[in-house]
């Protein structure tokens, strides 16, 4: 088995929302945080992060602000909005239900059918 997993369609948005919900972060920070939490098991194309960020911001789930990075450089920080918080909750619930169902199906043994 390969150690890195490709990201499932549509899950990047959810991961970004979750990461940002832990505190304001700039784009590169979000990338690092996802890799750190997932222990490098998720592969994210670096460039693909930004269109997703812009989309989320356009939809009003996150908002951005220019701030100063750890090494004293100007960087754009993203933060979760109230609407984003609700959205994250809804997405997470949906995801959990989905994984339960799928796990249930995959775990089915012949004698249970």
């Amino acid at each position, binding site marked *: 088995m390969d150690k890195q997993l490709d990201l499932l369609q549509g899950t990047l948005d959810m991961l970004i929302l979750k990461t940002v919900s832990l505190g304001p972060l*700039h*784009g590169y920070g979000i990338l690092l945080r996802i890799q750190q939490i997932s222990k490098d098991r998720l592969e994210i194309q670096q460039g693909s992060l930004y269109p997703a960020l*812009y989309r989320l911001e356009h939809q009003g789930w996150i908002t951005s602000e220019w701030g100063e990075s750890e090494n004293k450089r100007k*960087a754009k920080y993203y933060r979760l909005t109230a609407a984003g918080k609700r959205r994250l909750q809804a997405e997470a619930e949906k995801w959990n239900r989905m994984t339960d169902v799928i796990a249930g199906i995959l775990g089915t043994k012949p004698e249970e059918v």
Partner: protein
Amino acid sequence: MRPWSRIRSWLGATLRRSRMESEMDAELRFHMEAYAEDLVRGGVHREEAMRRARLEFGGIERVKEEGREARGANLIDNLVQDLRYGLRMLRKNPGFTAVTVLTLALGIGANAAIFGLVDSAFLRGLPFREPERLVHIWTIEDDGDMHTPTPTQYLKVRKESESFEQIAAAGWADYFYGADGSVLQNLPGLLVTPNWLRTLGVQPLLGRDFRDEEQIAGQDAVVILSYDCWHIRFHAAPSIIGKKIILNRRPALVIGVLPRSLGPYYEELEIFAPLVLDSYASQANVRAGKMRVQIIARLKTGVTLQQARSEAEVIAGRFRNPGTSAGRGGQLVVEDFAEMLRHPGPTMQNARRGLWMTAIAAGAVLLIACANVASFLLARGLKRHREVAVRAALGCSRGRMVRQLLTESTLLFFCGGGVALVATRWCEEIITKAASGMVPGVYLQVDGRVFAISLGVSLLSALAFGMIPALQATRVNLNESLKGAAPNAAGGWRSRRLRNVLVGGQIALGMVLLVGFGLLLRSFLRVESSPLGYDPRDVLTATTRLPPTRYTAPSDRARLMHEATERARLMPGVESVGIANSLPMEGAESARLRIEAPPTKAAPAEQEIYFVSVSPEYFSTLKVGILAGRSFQERDGQEGGPVAIVNQTFAKTYFLGANPIGYHLAFADSLIIHREIVGIVSDFRQRNPEEDLRPLAYFPATQMLPGRWSLAIRVRAESDMGNVAAGLSSWLRPVDPQLYWDVGSMQQQIHDSESLTLRRPIITLLSSFGGLALVLVVVGVFGVTSYSVAERTREIGIRVALGAARGEITGLVLRETLGVTLAGLAMGTLGAFALTRFFPTGPIGWSGSGIYLYGVSRADSVSYTCAAALLMTVAIAASWVPARRAARVDPMVALRYE
């Protein structure tokens, strides 16, 4: 909340484009540099780190583009790009563009014009400032009817009421005006208090309003002209302001011109002059005591109609003598000014009928035009399949392509709308003239509202009819198309079926339109040729109106009638001369008459009866037979005993077949004079050619002495009627050089009768729409057949190569058109049958006229057959040229073609 943030983000991206770009740039650069720094910290060489950072980041431009897309920053860019591309495509196919734009212009123009007419007649409301605050004030008198108040009542109300901001009065007046000073024309006018226009809230278009001192006798020689009067009689010259014109033999200074329309109330009026109350009240009038004024008033802000009414009651109470009880009489009624609009009279209702029909017809024309354009776009979509395939292969999304094709078709529709507006602007006068008989005050003027409607119609139809072709065109099979195959098989077939549906649909619509037109046209012709009961041929008419200041003595009036009759009879070519106060087709006055009936027959004692005053020779001049008794004679003059003649219907209705001769009639308001019935005259139509016959009474003109009457002059069959007509005015001049004679003919009277005047505009409008529909069907069938032949060139080539005769190929093409046409006609017949159920079959109101089916049933086979035959001919003719082209296809060329 969220839609707002989206709009804000979009606005930010669009309006502050450069800022968004630089921010995006900075952000991405920060990312790569931060990553590179991390790499350097991990021991990678600086340059190598930067290279890897760039590499792993992926295509920066693509990321940026996706970012812009995500924020909607590209919307406007894309639109501009699409527009530019669309314009280029349209310029590249000038033929296609021209035909499509013209087609659309016809459809949209028809609707813009009809909207303009409807708007001017019905939607615009009263052209006054805050019309909801305007009221009419009436009185109710002892007879229980509403009357216009007297000048005295006006002065009292003005003095005592507090509910009104302004109270104005108006009285009617006739004006005699001669452009060259000699021949006088009769212009209807209104005498108004100086605050009248202020009360309505109308500003003169040119010049100024009346001044308060101009209601004092001696200073009142000023007039304001209506817009129409200014246009027709003074050629719309602005220099008229400050000039003096001669009205009623007195010079009057023109001080202003009114705006185009004063609404339906004051439509016919041409002259507005100050009302001098003292002299108005004492003015000599035939029916004394009838000098009354119309009172209008403007409620103060915050005062309700109800409050004004209670106040009016109090004031009316003070009018009445303290002794008398509050009976039915002596009340003041305050009524909303717009009341009349809410209960439109027969003319308005009729106009509404007519305009509805025309509006539906205009809608049908638009649909036909749109169907045409949609089928052109479908055909063009197929031609462009390769372009579409290439773009799809290069990664263009379908949505993006649909958007682009829609932009292109919307551009076409807007061009059509633009051309339509220009054309409508040009045709303003013609259309106004064509519609003018339908409803008073209807006119067409291309203004902001017409513009907005045209724009809206263009946009809606562009979206509705551009969508299917756009969806159809972007449905591509990449593999097949890029290999260079023609879009035959499924795609081509689907598109052809759609095109046939569109052509069939437009033929069906054309059928409905033509059947409707046919039914109305046949009704019109039936009305025109309905039996009148008199012979209108070779009869001239000359109408005069006596100036109010002259011919006041009855003997003078009688002498004038006698002299004019004798003078006219002496004119070369004249056979006989009669007089009537209202000619056939002019209607008649009515009054309550007491009818003395045979004692055995129960009949109503009093009836509202129409009556006409005529001279002895009138009936013989019209070639109307006396059925019993005698006609009037010279001795039935002022000295002779009062007499009457009744028509056949009168005798039948009130005498139930008994002989009425020798019985008497009397006006209910002067029962002293009994008029003996001396004759029965054969029935003839007095108001409209198609009306039901009504009971009519005739009295000798010399006993009634009307203030306005006409000569009916029968010209000898062998004489030239035109010559007699041309010389008539000057021939009659010696009778009284100051009288104006309005010369016409009996045929003209019929032409101008209410029925035909009401019906003519809709015939004119519908015939032009029918014509437009036919032209559009020709264009549509020709276009679609041509394209279908071009598409099948190869198939036809194979058929010819296999030995098909030329005739068979022509037949092949014609058969397809024939099939589509027949299907369309069948649908159209059903549609017409369903729709004509809503056609009115009876007149509106008491006059018997209006737009309705007369003498034809709605299933009239002639109308259906003619419409179907016309459409069939047109469709076959339009596909003849492409069919012949198909027959000439050279198999060698056709097969090498692909």
